[in-house]
């Protein structure tokens, strides 16, 4: 049992992180906190993906000593990590940054209009102004 | 059976649809041109329909496929004797109603006349579509178009009452449309076809419980428009519509479409044999009888002339359904021929009510004392039609009632004979006081004691329809060959079933 838990501890960690983020996104009233939750959520996802690429006993997927020219000897697959998840996560990181940027921009808009970023206060202001 | 492929059915439907858009394009400014579209379309439609009658009488059918959706699922016209009969009724009466409408709306200086004529033409287009449709899907398509096209006519007055009536009308008919859609989809799923077939096509495709449920749904769906009780509520309310609308649509096109649908279901989807086996014909007949009697009594209680006529319509339509439900040769003949006879007589009555409304602004039965002296032609026509509806010879109503009674005897159901007798008595009870009062009672103060009729545009059509109801009483096969068509239709059904 313990062995089982340890053998997959990467998953436990990312699940816990992700749930923290998810809870912040759904449960928090402050919009900035929601945004932070979103970032935690996405980071957890990135961790998850990157951990898929891990192979025991392998190293980073960069060929050493083959800076230029062709390779003649056979490359051992087991020696290098799986590069694909890393690639995917480079894209996902960019996406997450872009999303954060857009979200921050909307937060600026919201703050300009209501002078607060607390969800219930905004709701109250909107109710009072009769919208 | 010989099948002739021809695009004439399509043109019969399209001609008034095209006219509808021409009317819309012409608009309020050029009234005379607009009205000429209506009349031209009416004449053209009638001629197209009439030109097909001889072919049908030779025992052939005319077919035209508009579009195929799926194998076995298509929009198609197929004209058989039964559809032809309905087509002839609707298209011939449209001409008269067109003239009458012109007199009516101009006489009252109505608003939104363009919309009125547009919707009218659309209604006729879909009515003919219903008459000629070859399968349930086509039927449903035109049936729904008819529902929508009638709506602007029901709410024509744009008064609160009118809008409420419109809502009620839509509530009833659209719900019915949904029920129909479901039932028809289920039939298609079960049988893979929707084509009408004399004597029915659905037998053996499902358990009897399912078939009975489908039958109930279909009759409910079509019965709403036919004013079958207890789904009749919208019809008297819809009498707020202008009188030509009530005349053509609530006496001929719309409600007849409902009855036509019921008959199609009874005779061409389920078929006499199956209904007999399932034993629902008797229930159907009882429902119809119930409607006949109750509507008769309710009519007695109405003071508003058009509402009284509306209940009389419900009463007569139920009689048609009763004829079909009894499943004997004579009763079917009586029911089908009554579709034609009732149409001519009832339209006369509505025309008269409209003439009264336009000329002397009287809508209530109690206001009609002595009006016969002022408007003898109108009230004379009224008398003829009323007598006819009560089933007194030599008017055409007698013929249909005769066959219906014969049918009741053939079916060994004496009780329905009594129903028919009671109904005739009720007819007498709610029509004869009107005739008596208008001719023999001392005129009310506001009645002009000398001859002063409604506009000729209105009087001539109603005189023609009144005369026709006498002619059909004496020579049932005159002009339009209604009788031959009827017997041909019955032959087709009985030949198979």
């Amino acid at each position, binding site marked *: 049992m313990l062995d089982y838990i340890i053998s997959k501890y990467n998953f436990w960690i990312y699940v816990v992180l992700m749930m923290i983020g998810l809870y912040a*996104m759904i449960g928090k009233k402050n919009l900035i906190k929601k945004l932070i939750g979103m970032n935690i959520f*996405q980071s957890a996802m990135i961790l998850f993906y990157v951990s898929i690429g891990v192979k025991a006993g392998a190293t980073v997927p960069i060929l050493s000593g083959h800076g230029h020219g062709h390779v003649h000897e056979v490359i051992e697959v087991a020696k290098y990590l799986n590069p694909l998840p890393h690639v995917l996560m480079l894209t996902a990181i960019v996406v997450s940054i872009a999303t954060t940027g857009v979200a921050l921009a909307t*937060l600026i808009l919201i703050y300009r209009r209501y002078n607060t970023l607390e969800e219930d206060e905004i709701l109250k202001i909107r109710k009072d102004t009769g919208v | 059976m010989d099948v002739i492929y021809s695009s004439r059915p399509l043109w019969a439907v399209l001609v008034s649809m095209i006219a509808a858009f021409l009317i819309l394009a012409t608009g309020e400014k050029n009234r005379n041109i607009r009205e000429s579209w209506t009349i031209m379309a009416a004449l053209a439609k009638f001629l197209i329909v009439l030109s097909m009658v001889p072919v049908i009488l030779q025992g052939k059918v005319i077919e035209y496929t508009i579009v195929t*959706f799926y194998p076995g699922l298509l929009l198609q016209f197929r004209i058989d004797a039964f559809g032809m009969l309905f087509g002839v009724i609707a298209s011939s009466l449209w001409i008269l109603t067109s003239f009458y409408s012109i007199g009516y709306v101009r006489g009252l200086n109505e608003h939104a006349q363009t919309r009125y004529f547009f919707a009218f033409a659309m209604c006729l287009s879909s009515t003919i579509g219903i008459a000629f449709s070859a399968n349930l899907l086509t039927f449903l398509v035109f049936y729904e178009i008819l529902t929508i096209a009638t709506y602007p006519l029901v*709410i024509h007055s744009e008064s609160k009452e009118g809008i409420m009536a419109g*809502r009620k009308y839509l509530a009833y008919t659209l719900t019915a449309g949904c029920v129909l*859609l479901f039932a028809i*989809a289920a039939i298609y799923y079960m049988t893979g076809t929707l084509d009408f077939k004399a004597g029915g096509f659905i037998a053996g495709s499902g358990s009897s419980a399912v078939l009975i449920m489908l039958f109930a749904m279909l009759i409910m769906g079509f019965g709403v428009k036919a004013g079958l009780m207890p789904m009749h509520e919208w019809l008297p309310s819809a009498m707020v519509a202008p009188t030509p609308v009530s005349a053509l649509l609530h006496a001929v096109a719309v409600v007849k479409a409902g009855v036509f649908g019921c008959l199609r279901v009874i005779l061409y989807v389920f078929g006499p044999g199956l209904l007999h086996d399932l034993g629902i014909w008797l229930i159907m007949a009882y429902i119809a009888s119930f409607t006949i009697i109750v509507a008769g009594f309710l009519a007695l209680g109405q003071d508003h002339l058009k509402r009284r006529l509306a209940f009389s319509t419900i009463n007569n339509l139920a009689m048609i359904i009763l004829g079909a439900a009894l499943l004997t040769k004579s009763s079917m003949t009586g029911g089908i021929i009554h579709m034609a006879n009732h149409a001519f007589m009832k339209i006369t009555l509505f025309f008269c009510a409209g003439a009264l409304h336009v000329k002397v602004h009287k809508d209530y039965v109690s206001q009609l004392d002595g009006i016969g002296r002022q408007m003898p032609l109108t009230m004379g026509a009224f008398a003829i039609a009323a007598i006819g509806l009560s089933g007194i010879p030599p008017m055409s109503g007698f013929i249909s009632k005769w066959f219906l009674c014969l049918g009741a005897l053939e079916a060994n159901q004496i009780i329905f004979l009594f129903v028919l007798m009671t109904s005739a008595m009720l007819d007498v009870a709610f029509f004869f006081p009107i005739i008596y009062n208008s001719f023999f009672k001392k005129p009310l103060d506001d009645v002009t004691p000398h001859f002063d009729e409604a506009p000729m545009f209105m009087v001539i059509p109603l005189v023609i329809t009144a005369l026709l109801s006498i002619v059909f009483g004496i020579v049932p096969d005159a002009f339009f060959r209604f009788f031959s068509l009827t017997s041909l239709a019955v032959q087709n059904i009985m030949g198979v079933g």
Partner: protein
Amino acid sequence: MAEQFAALIIVVPLISSLLVPVIGWGQKKLCYPWVVAVLVVPLICSLGILNTVLTTGKFSYRLGGWAPPWGIEYAIDHLNAFVLVIVSFISLMVAIHSKKSVEKELSEKTVPFYTLFLLLVTGLLGIVITGDAFNLFVFLEIASLSCYALIAIGEEGAPIAAFNYIIIGTIGACFYLLGVGYLYIATGSLNMADLANILPDLYHSKVILVAFAFFTVGIAIKGGLFPLHTWLPDAYCTAPSAVSSLIAPLMTKVAAYVMIRLMFTVFQPHFSVEIVPVFAILGWLSVFAIFWGGIKALAQTDIKRMLVYVLVAEVGYIVIGVSVANRVGLTGAILHIMNDAVMMTCLFLVVGAILYKTGTREIHQFRHLNKKMPFTMAAFTITALSMCGIPPACGFFSKWYLIQGTIEAGQWVWAAALLCSSLINAVLFFRVIECAYLKPMEPAYAHNAGETHGEILRDEAPFTMLVPIVIMAAGVIFLGIFSGKIISSVIQFAVPASF
């Protein structure tokens, strides 16, 4: 030729979106004609693709020449060729329509608006055309990001709606990505066709089950399926009218497409039907969606808000078609993707035109609209009738197939929900029609028969708005009449072969 079409359909709007700021820098007014001209290209391309698919069958386009599953491919079959045509056609129509309303609502933001507009279209097209699960996510994000921003510049309350959308939309997208990750762990592949080959052996793996669950939830969020639709009404309603007429019809439909793609081609239908009871759940949720959307719509006085709730119900329609999981139901669902896209676009365009002309969206202020804007209102009426399922408009036919599907599946309640929803729609739309056509009921009017009383001048929407509206309304009728043709030539091949 078709391969070039497949490449161009994404690249042209993408590159053109880079050029919009350049063009707008010189002359702002040129943005609009540029965008319209550019959007003609995807339409032509998609028609070319559809034509190729119809004549030679499905094909794939390898980006960079790398063979799948190592590289990314566009896998084009009947289903996505069909959806591509819908997306590109509707985006063109909305672009044409947008001229005046953008000038009025967003006058100083024309340039970035049109840039994002093109990017949004690119994203939607990319989602539909791609054959790679991760690539789909990237395009989903392009579409979503532009969506968020376009919504945020709407009326009062739009930024909050947009922020909520960002949060929930990100959850949706991330759930999708989690699903992809789980599939990748179990299979090692990202290519949809490759996944479809590998998956059948793994159907009983828990990883696959979880992946499937996350896919479903993620897509349901993006498509606004009840009860995950909570972000949708505010977001779509507060957006500028040009934006809502683009995203309201298309976002939900594209999500529905992704759902069909994942459930029936990546996973085999028998997995989605037998191993996971997902369709029972989805079907019942759709029933709730239909009723909830309908009832909420009844409570609205603002026509745009009403339409948005109707949209929630319409999503339910499509999902019911998917959930019955039989051939005819799915045909109905795919048909309804097209029909509903056309109808919804038409309705939103009409609302945009009315808002532009009269400045109001309140239904009770629609008096005399039939006189002021006869063509717009005629288009509205036709589409409204189609929404109520009146033949021969297209709404009737999708309803027909959907009901056939429910009957075949023996789901009577679902069928009843579909039927009830047409009645609810009838109430909704006839209420509007009554207000627009019949409300001139001042007491004086009733007698004076409208001869000269209160002459109402015609004040029709501008030409650029009217043209797409009329085209869409005509489309509603034509798609209805030719639905048989469309089904027999396209949709029946689009339904996955395993049915």
